[in-house]
């Protein structure tokens, strides 16, 4: 028993370390790390001082983006910094940092002797990329306030804080569940059979299936939770965010982790939107609102103000 536990922990730690360090693994014994700096620079750190004349000769470098090895990027200059172990490559154009870049260094010369050629991959930290998808879906491209999706359920369940939180949590759970199923179905059934034009129909079925499944299972396994959240489950089907997320996943060809992060971010974003809105609407109940604006009209005005505030996030990028 104890052994199995250790074994599992070992596997988990390998997985986590793999994710964390997959962004900066050295692939050559003489190169310590190679990372993106700013928008158009790459900094390479060597294990020892390199020959200045070798390092500043542009013919010694070749770099391309991972998917197309034929298109070499043009390097405008290479400079050795004050620390003789670090070389900074400047590029004419901005680098697309979402894609891994393959960099070839020919016949590295250090302290008079040749070390040999090296091929290394420069890429962003993967966890950072996942995190940026999460924050992006949650705040920067908040589905309610910047894409105006799911408004029906949004106005329907944001009258009280307790309802809003219940709906938000239920929604997040079902969202992650159905997005993962849709991702699986899209990648392994629709794409191989060239049926991707039917994605909307299939995803609608998938959403209702997952709602029904969660409903059936939750009713038996945890009746207390079902009593609290069961009412909102049916409403989830009527929400278009839950359909938008699988379509975005399919369009962007996300992998499993990225899909999960997007779904989770969308759910949390909806929860945040509902919570903010319900807090305002609870206060509006006791405010003196002109009779023509009472109820939904003033709620729409408030939602518009929130959308304006969320525009402050637009165009931001993390990492």
């Amino acid at each position, binding site marked *: 028993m104890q052994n199995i536990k250790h074994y599992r922990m070992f596997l988990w730690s390998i997985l986590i370390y793999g994710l964390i360090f997959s962004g900066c693994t050295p692939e050559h014994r003489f190169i310590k790390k190679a990372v993106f700096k700013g928008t158009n620079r790459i900094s390479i750190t060597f294990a020892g001082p390199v020959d200045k004349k070798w390092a500043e000769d542009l013919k010694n470098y070749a770099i391309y983006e991972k998917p197309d090895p034929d298109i070499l990027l043009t390097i405008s200059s290479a400079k050795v910094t004050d620390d003789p172990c670090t070389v900074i490559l400047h590029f004419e154009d901005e680098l697309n940092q979402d894609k891994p870049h393959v960099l070839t260094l020919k016949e590295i010369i250090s302290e008079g002797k040749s070390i040999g050629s090296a091929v290394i991959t420069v890429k962003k930290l993967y966890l950072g990329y996942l995190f940026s998808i999460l924050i992006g879906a949650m705040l920067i491209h908040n589905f309610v306030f910047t894409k105006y999706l799911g408004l029906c359920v949004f106005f329907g369940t944001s009258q009280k804080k307790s309802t809003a939180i219940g709906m938000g949590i239920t929604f997040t759970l079902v969202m992650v569940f159905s997005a993962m199923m849709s991702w699986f*179905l899209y990648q392994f*059934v629709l794409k191989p*059979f*060239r*049926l991707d034009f*039917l994605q909307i129909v*299939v995803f609608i*079925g998938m959403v209702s*299936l997952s709602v*029904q*499944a969660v409903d*059936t*299972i939750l*009713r*038996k*396994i945890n*009746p207390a939770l079902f009593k609290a959240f069961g009412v909102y489950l049916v409403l989830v089907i009527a929400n278009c965010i839950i359909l938008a997320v699988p379509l975005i996943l399919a369009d962007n060809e996300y992998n499993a982790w990225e899909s999960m992060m997007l779904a989770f971010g969308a759910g949390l974003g909806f929860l945040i939107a509902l919570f903010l809105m319900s807090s305002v609407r609870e206060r509006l109940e006791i405010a003196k609102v002109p009779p023509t604006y009472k109820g939904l009209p003033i709620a729409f005005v408030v939602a518009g103000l929130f959308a304006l505030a969320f525009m402050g996030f637009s165009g931001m990028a993390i990492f």
Partner: protein
Amino acid sequence: MDPELINLAIEGLAVLGCIGLVFGIGLALAAHKFAVEINPKIEEVKEVLAGAQ
């Protein structure tokens, strides 16, 4: 009609039909396994009550 398109349509029908069948059976089994006994008296009492609201 292009036979390739017809093939695609038939394949699509078969694949989606199979998926639907599998998930349908899955849901039915789940409903059977996780069935919750509801007291039949609740329905009876509801029938007898006026039910205006």
